[in-house]
């Protein structure tokens, strides 16, 4: 008989798992998206922040300095998520992959990147702790509130936030592909309105104080767990949206 028949019954059970790992490799084909731009954003923001700290401390200002700039690499993962979807989904279909394999592989690739980013943040934080903020009280990765639970907890917080941004970008890109830009924009506006309604309610009931108390009580690691819950919900949402996406 033919060659095609000879090797057709090749262990079909082992395939799906290998194929999912293959998607990780497929995603990392976009080294620019997954590796170099994140490295550049992280390195660039770190350098800029440190230069600002140096200028400030050189002008004789004392006391520890903190910056919100360190969040930029985390936000950038929304872009990574959108790119992972936009650039690779159609090609993954041409590779005869199922949507589930594409989804799991993409999430796994994102998790690996997020572990990398978190490790860099933890390493920088440890260095900053040891050197008293590079000897000038300037902190980039070490934020006391985040580090209350120690380096491991800080690492988890960074990881969860990175994944949250990734999955948001990923989901929005799927919604855009499936329902179009109009529906995507509408849903973003609806989300904004819902958030505003929540803020309005807090104001009317004068409950902002309670919210801040709750935030302080929950601590960063507790909030990270809430963020993790959100990430899981968004991840399920994006899978359900992806399942019926056509090419």
């Amino acid at each position, binding site marked *: 008989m033919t060659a095609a028949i000879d090797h057709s019954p090749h262990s079909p059970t082992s395939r799906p798992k290998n194929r999912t790992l*293959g998607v990780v490799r497929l995603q990392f084909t976009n080294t620019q998206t997954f590796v170099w731009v994140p490295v550049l954003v992280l390195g660039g923001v770190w350098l800029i922040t440190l230069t600002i700290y140096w200028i400030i401390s050189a002008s004789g200002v004392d006391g520890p300095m903190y910056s919100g700039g360190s969040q930029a690499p985390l936000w950038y993962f929304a872009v990574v998520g959108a790119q992972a979807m936009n650039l690779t989904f159609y090609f993954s279909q041409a590779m*005869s992959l199922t949507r589930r394999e594409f989804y799991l592989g993409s999430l796994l690739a994102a998790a690996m990147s997020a572990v990398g980013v978190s490790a860099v943040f933890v390493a920088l934080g440890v260095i900053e702790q040891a050197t008293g903020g590079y000897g000038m009280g300037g902190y980039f990765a070490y934020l006391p509130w985040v580090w209350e639970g120690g380096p491991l907890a800080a690492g988890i917080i960074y990881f969860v936030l990175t994944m949250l941004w990734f999955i948001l970008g990923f989901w929005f890109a799927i919604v855009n592909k499936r329902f179009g830009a109009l529906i995507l924009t509408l849903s973003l506006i609806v989300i904004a309105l819902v958030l505003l309604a929540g803020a309005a309610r807090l104001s009317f009931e004068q409950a902002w104080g309670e919210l801040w108390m709750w935030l302080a009580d929950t601590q960063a690691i507790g909030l990270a767990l809430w963020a993790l819950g959100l990430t899981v919900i968004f991840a399920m949402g994006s899978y359900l949206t992806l399942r*019926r996406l056509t090419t």
Partner: protein
Amino acid sequence: MNSVVEVRHLTKTYKTANALEDVSLSIEKDSIYGLLGRNGAGKTTLMSILTAQNFATSGDVEVFGEDPYENARVLSRMCFVRESQKYPDDSNAGHALANARLFFPHWDQDLAEELVDEFRLPLKTMTRKLSRGQQSAVGVIIGLASRAEITFFDEPYLGFDAVARQTFYDHLIADYAEHPRTIVLSSHLIDEVADLIENVIVIDRGRIIMDETTEEVRSRAVNVVGDADAINRLVAGREVIHRESLGRVASVTMLGQLSNADRELIADANLDLIPVSLQQLIVRSTQADDQPADDIEVRSLQS
């Protein structure tokens, strides 16, 4: 014979139009099919549904006896080469082929490398900077080297010159001879692929209007060449679907088979019988139930 694809009462409805209407067909193992039809007839939709990249509105699709949707076991045995496949932005042809090697179990790396040479495909250039023909070459190489048990080629030669198209046809037929498999080739260039395909499926406005072997289709008509007067006598009262003449010589394609009397007339008048053009037969059958206004518009089928 055993079929690898079974489609029953498949209908696909978009908001404004029916892309497929009550399509039923089966595709046999180890055979080359031509999926022919005009632009927008539903060819791509049909192949997308068979590979679970699109969804049916109603009806059943079975590939290797199973529903292909989200079915890695079935999908890994198929390869679908699209007319304009999208590739990741910052990747090149080398990446695409390396990835394909990862996912297609019967991938032949030697064949892939040979084809890269023959199509003169630059591996390091970003995919989006490749010419239209070079991008098509990436898809064609993946389709051939993957040696999937069912391979769909949807107008795979966009931007190919005549040489590249011939390279594709030659490799397709040579590799098919060594590694028989099921190939579904959708094409506008009917006469170019006529000698490759063993079965013809013609789809028109979402309906299957022809599903036969190429031989059966060809035997529906005869094509005679020779003295115009003799030919006029022969075809009197028959349906002529194509006529060309140059001076006293005419070439006429007419429906129906030849009787013994016809054969005598042909022998006496020194007429020649030549193979019927598949394209003419198919153009005619897709025009048959058209409004007259559409009749003239056959360009899409002709090139």
